[in-house]
């Protein structure tokens, strides 16, 4: 079985998608000859030609507006926006157009668009290169939103997103691009339904809910806690819209405690949604309020302060402890 990095897995998924469906188009800033700043589109222009894999001028609103028109003309666009923070100039096209054209046209115009968005922080990058926009996207009716946590997930979720007839925002955890995993993308897999989560570690004392790069961090926390005899379940939410409310409830009704972890700022982050969904379904079972460990309500800081900002193992452990020691006052 080959060992693939997330970046290679995504590259393979794009290649397979182009091979399987000749309506798939890949475009964005520097995705052609350069192969993308993270090389996720490496070699694709050579293989599929400059008509199907092309560079755009430096204009994010155009990239998404173009996607709408291409979809109307029967193509299946897979645009890239180079970094999370540069999707803001395209938000109008994403919210007011991509997400609504199918609705506005009463189903006459399909929008099978997959926006690839290198996302989240942790790589000591310049300003605007470490943002987490999942809460914004999840709030937009008409969008589906997904974030893989590793190579095999990345491959299958990207194939699924591209195959889906609706717009999907595909958030790639850039700090995990070089993480490797053994798996064979050629092996056929029945993909789990859109909107399903995945328990990546079983446990019984509390559930850690995370997505993207925070899944690995939560596994690390679970390993540390296990040394103290605390068995944490780790749930990779992966689909951020629709959210697997049943999966959350199933896990937390067993563990009776939950901690949700994300990189985005706390206030109005997706943690509030996850916490509410759990509480609405598991109120009677919960032994403690759902804890949230998130970025602070500050702009994503420069590299020197990145580790202070991101949920650390310590902060997550403290939240676990709070949940475990909670006594109804």
């Amino acid at each position: 079985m080959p060992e693939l990095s997330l970046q290679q897995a995504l590259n393979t998924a794009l290649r397979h998608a182009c091979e399987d469906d000749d309506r798939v188009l890949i475009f964005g800033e520097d995705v052609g000859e350069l192969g993308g700043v993270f090389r996720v589109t490496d070699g694709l222009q050579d293989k599929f030609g400059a008509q199907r894999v092309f560079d755009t001028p430096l204009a994010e609103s155009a990239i998404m507006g173009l996607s709408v028109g291409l979809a109307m003309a029967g193509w299946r666009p897979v645009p890239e926006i180079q970094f999370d923070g540069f999707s803001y100039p395209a938000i109008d096209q994403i919210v007011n157009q991509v997400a609504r054209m199918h609705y506005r046209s009463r189903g006459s115009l399909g929008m099978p668009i997959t926006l690839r968005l290198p996302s989240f922080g942790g790589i000591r990058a310049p300003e605007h290169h470490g943002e987490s926009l999942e809460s914004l996207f999840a709030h937009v009716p008409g969008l589906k939103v997904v974030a893989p946590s590793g190579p095999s997930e990345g491959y299958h979720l990207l194939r699924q997103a591209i195959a889906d007839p609706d717009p999907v925002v595909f958030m790639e955890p850039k700090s995990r691009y070089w993480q490797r995993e053994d798996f064979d993308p050629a092996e056929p897999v029945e993909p789990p339904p859109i909107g399903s989560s995945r328990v990546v570690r079983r446990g019984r004392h509390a559930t850690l809910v995370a997505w993207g790069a925070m899944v690995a961090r939560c596994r690390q926390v679970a390993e540390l806690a296990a040394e103290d005899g605390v068995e944490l379940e780790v749930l990779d939410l992966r689909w951020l819209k629709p959210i697997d409310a049943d999966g959350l409830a199933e896990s937390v009704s067993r563990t009776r405690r939950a901690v949700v972890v994300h990189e985005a700022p706390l206030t109005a982050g997706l943690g509030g949604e996850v916490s509410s969904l759990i509480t609405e379904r598991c109120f009677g079972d919960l032994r403690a309020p759902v804890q949230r460990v998130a970025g602070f309500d500050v702009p994503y800081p420069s590299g020197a302060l990145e580790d202070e900002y991101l949920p650390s193992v310590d902060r997550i452990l403290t939240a676990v402890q709070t949940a475990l020691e909670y006594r109804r006052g």
Partner: protein
Amino acid sequence: MRTLPLMDDAEFRELFRLMLVTRRLDEEAIALQRQGVLPAYAPVRGQEAAQVGSAAALDLSRDFAFPTYRELGAAVAMGVDPVAYLAMHLNIWHGGLYDASTSRLSPPNAVVGGPVLHAVGWAMGAQLDGTGGAALTYFGDGASSQGDIHEAMNFAGVYRLPVVFFCQNNGWAISLPTARQVAGGSVAARAAGYGFEGVRVDGNDATAVFEATRKALDHARSGGGPTIVEAMTYRLGPHSTSDDPSRYRSADEERARAEHDPITTGMAALTAEDVADAEEHAASVVTRTTEGLRALKTPPGDDMFRFVHREPTAALLAQHRAWKESQDA
């Protein structure tokens, strides 16, 4: 400026019939708004020649048009059912009820500037497929200030895409006159900066508009790239039925501009018989449309859920179900 078309110009007669249908429908829509049938309406009075002249130049077997919220005349010229088009103003459905895909007319779009990028994307799709089709996209003098317009024109210029940027310069963007909107004074003049042609045309002369648009479409279809056509016209009515133009422009100005009313000048150029015939035709369309509008039913609330995705999510199906149950209760 052109001289008026000759009276034996059959082409002009046909354009005039469509313009008159538009005018009478427009008047009826305003009347219906006053009667409380339509909640609100955006009049096109004065712009019939610009809209009908341009849309009539389309080849509906391969072209596609992208309207704003004020394109009744284009819809009429393209043969879209006026009831389905005006349903938007009845607050039945934001995008109207016509089938955008088969009509070759995108749903009305209220984001000023936004749909222009869709036209560019559609044009790229058509070019990739080699259909020989061209995109015709409408926008106003006000819209010309939006960033999306620039991104669209630059993109279309770089890829030499088959798209006609059709600007109806009607003198006003709500209360702002063109002089304080368009630096340099001319939208057509912007084309030179993108390396393609821009032409100004008398927007109250349907034949001139038709010819300029046809030429631009031909140029596009034959691989010559984009063109800006700026049709100089005037919004004779208010911006919308809730607008009060007396707050920002003089009655003198309105009277002066009414002298170039394309319907009046068109009538003067035709025989009384032709005019009477056109009036009869328009009246019958108005009658049919009014009946159709009055008979239109509020769509079921289910539609609100049905068209969000092509592949609905379990979460939304659950919301739909809950809504249904609350209706039944």
